[in-house]
């Protein structure tokens, strides 16, 4: 099913290693190349990688086993992944899954006997405005009609083995619904670079600082300050990293930016490179967005040809800066900046303890500024329009506009470029969601916002957000959504620290008991206590925020918990009948007093 696995195998893997100069920090690139070529990473490939990189096999395995998109056992030639999120399920992902199962004759998680197809669930793939969607190898098919699935399968089935090009084209639709301050004006490649080069690097940082730009990934750290720290930190090299590991379920605005406004983002990176004194920028692009690879590379190539990237940018002698793209391989945690750095260095994406901060010891222990895609786009716009223009938009503590990814129960899902300071009510009117019952705001790691808070502002000082905005009407159960959010954190916890590794699983189980209507008052109290411990004791932002689905629904939807609560002092998690199910199936008979 895959090209020759034996004698050429070792030669090929060795070539992949040679392609990255046997640089251990590029292990992920080699792993992805092997995965793409052979459909999995065999024991022989691991051994070849270990010797080629001067590592122990157990270290290679440590990295490989971390990433959801890397396999150690053969899987189907065509990998069909459906995203399993509250939004995708609402839009019919379960029906699409059944249609794929019927067409292929296998269940989710299985591979067809001929080794052609593997069908499985994955977490959010960044298509919340176009669900149900499927990721087939690297192609993204969106707004999938159930009726088309047999045709898709038939098309793939008749492909000769391993033939390029891939028969499917991505069908991602434009996502920008409402343009605004960040995106409305024309922008030509190099506009921001030219503006930046007219002033000194320190003045660039001053300008960014005056604009009061804050990180758009959700944490809201002042960008000018981050750039200042990075510039001032001593190091052999300085690095600019663009965090395009957009993994928060419900968000897709970075995908939109990289699709429709890559020049704004790349210009922003070059401006940051100039301000920091960096020679290299890296875009960490989530594996789910591999379909963007060709267009982004084409853009970078054109920039090099036009003097907007490479040596002596814009004719400025001594200003050399280039950008490479690092693909991720299916790990939400890599959006956390220190995990991202570990992944960039070819390791498992486990977060680092801070201090030291990346601004001092980042990529390869060098000073590194890691900025969200949208933050860099803002920086480019500020260079052109000026700090005063930017800080004149929004609120006192939240300047500029925010890209919101809106999906769920609304008539106009998509990306909205809106000045900070709007209320949730304003937003709901705009997107066509008159009967919203609650909003999962800033993703699973954010909060479930109840109608009583719809008058609050979208701003760092009130309701802070990374952009994910999932809207639910009264037909949806806020507790069930919270349970699904916990499922997400269980599958994305990196495992490094105890509270997140074990705690997310315990919280998920606690929510399951509640949703099943088997939780007592004591169970709910214990769950709240556990959630707070996980939040206080976890090592990084993922674990610290993972309990939010539980804690914010307990705070704002207590009536839902009361409605599910049992009055008994104690209820076992499993009913006696369920506990006996295995024994019943072995014995082939029900207990004498069934349903006792």
């Amino acid at each position: 099913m895959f090209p020759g696995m034996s004698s050429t195998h070792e030669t090929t893997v060795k070539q992949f290693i040679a392609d990255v100069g046997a640089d251990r920090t590029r292990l992920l690139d080699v792993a992805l190349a092997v995965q793409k070529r052979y459909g999995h990473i065999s024991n022989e490939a691991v051994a070849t990688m270990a010797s080629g990189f001067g590592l122990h096999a157990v270290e290679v395995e440590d990295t490989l086993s971390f990433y959801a998109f890397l396999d150690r056992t053969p899987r189907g030639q065509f990998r069909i992944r459906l995203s399993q999120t509250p939004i995708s399920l609402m839009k019919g992902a379960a029906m699409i899954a059944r249609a794929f199962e019927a067409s292929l004759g296998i269940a989710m998680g299985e591979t067809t006997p001929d080794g052609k197809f593997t069908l499985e669930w994955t977490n959010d793939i960044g298509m919340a405005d176009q669900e149900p969607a499927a990721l087939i190898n690297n192609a993204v098919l969106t707004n999938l009609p159930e009726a088309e699935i047999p045709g898709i399968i038939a098309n793939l089935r008749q492909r000769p083995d391993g033939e390029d090009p891939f028969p499917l084209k991505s069908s991602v639709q434009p996502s920008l619904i409402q343009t605004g301050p960040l995106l409305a004006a024309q922008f030509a490649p190099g506009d921001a670079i030219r503006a930046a080069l007219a002033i000194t690097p320190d003045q660039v940082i001053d300008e960014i600082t005056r604009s009061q730009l804050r990180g758009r990934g959700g944490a809201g750290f002042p960008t000018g300050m981050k750039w200042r720290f990075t510039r001032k930190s001593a190091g052999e090299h300085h690095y600019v990293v663009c965090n395009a590991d957009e993994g928060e379920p419900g968000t897709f605005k970075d995908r939109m930016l990289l699709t429709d406004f890559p020049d704004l983002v790349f210009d922003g990176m070059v401006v940051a490179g100039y301000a920091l004194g960096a020679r290299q920028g890296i875009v960490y692009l989530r594996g789910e967005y591999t379909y963007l690879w060709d267009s982004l590379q084409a853009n970078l190539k054109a920039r090099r040809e036009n003097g907007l990237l490479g040596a002596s940018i814009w004719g400025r002698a001594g200003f050399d800066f280039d950008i490479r793209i690092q693909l991720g391989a299916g790990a939400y945690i890599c959006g956390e900046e220190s995990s991202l750095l570990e992944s960039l260095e070819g390791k498992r994406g486990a977060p680092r303890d801070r201090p030291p901060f990346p601004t001092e010891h980042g990529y390869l222990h060098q000073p590194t500024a890691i900025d969200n895609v949208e933050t860099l786009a803002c920086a480019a716009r500020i260079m052109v329009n000026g700090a005063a223009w930017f800080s004149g938009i929004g609120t006192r503590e939240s300047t500029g506009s925010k890209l919101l990814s809106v999906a769920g129960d609304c008539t106009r899902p998509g990306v909205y470029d809106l000045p900070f300071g709007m209320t949730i009510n304003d937003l709901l009117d705009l997107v066509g969601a008159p009967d919203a019952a609650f909003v999962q705001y800033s993703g699973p790691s954010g909060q479930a916002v109840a109608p009583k808070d719809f008058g609050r502002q979208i701003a760092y000082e009130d309701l802070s957000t990374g952009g994910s905005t999932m809207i639910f009407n009264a037909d949806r159960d806020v507790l069930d959504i919270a349970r699904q959010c916990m499922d997400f954190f269980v599958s994305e916890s990196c495992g490094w620290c105890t509270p997140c590794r074990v705690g997310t699983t315990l919280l998920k189980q606690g929510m399951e008991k509640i949703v099943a209507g088997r939780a007592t008052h004591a169970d709910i109290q214990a769950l709240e206590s556990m959630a707070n411990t996980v939040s206080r004791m976890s090592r990084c932002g993922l674990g610290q925020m993972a309990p939010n689905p539980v804690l914010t629904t307990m705070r704002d939807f207590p009536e839902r918990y009361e409605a599910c609560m049992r009055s008994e002092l104690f209820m076992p998690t499993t009913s006696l009948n369920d506990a006996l199910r295995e024994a019943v199936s072995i014995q082939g008979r029900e207990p004498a007093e069934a349903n006792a």
Partner: protein
Amino acid sequence: MDQTSSFPRAETTASVPKPIRFVVDGTIVEAEPGQSVLQACDDAGIYIPRLCYHPDLAPAGNCRVCTCKINGRNSAACVTPAVHGMAVENDTPQLTADRRTLIEMLFVEGIHPCPYCVASGDCELQALGYRLGMVAPTETYQWQPRTMDATHPDITLDHDRCILCSRCIRASRMEDGKTIFAFSGRGIEMHLNVDADGGLGATQMAAIDKAASVCPVACIVIKRDSYKIPDGRRRFDTMPIGADIEARRAKP
């Protein structure tokens, strides 16, 4: 397991004051530049409960038991550099409760049958459970599918007991120069992995390796070495964990 050398004595510092001074629960602690909060507190005879930390190994911050409130923020003391003027809360009811919950998590994540475990009385997990006031596991046992690796002639590796503290990983890599161990997988499915398909017996692991002596529980156990010290007379049977550190504290 012989872990009598786990906690080296504090160096006698004579009367030369150290350059860094900070406050832990109202007590002034001195530190040398480069010391972590935990190391400085150890020297000063203030015990911060910890599990994955080992004095001979670089800290890794896995277990989070040594989390203290430092300048108002929770941080693991083993990986937080001591800084002049910092305010550390260590012995508070909240932190004790949170640390106890972490211990309870580890008890239900793996399988830890204290009454018949070879490490009982010499187990840091068990000893911390006692010290932090754990009465019984209150969380749901996870019963994860894990294996026992008895392929090595001198060492057993019981994955059911593993608490993913990474001590053996660090010791093998840094002290033994062997890299026998690493993690595999992620999240709740993360587990300890060895550098050979054939199990521990197919690796270069030796019973005299540092990695064989740093396990805080009964995951890595030297064969034919158990029960030399009878139950009731082991390390933590005679005094609570941390008492050796607290004994260093200068009497007022």
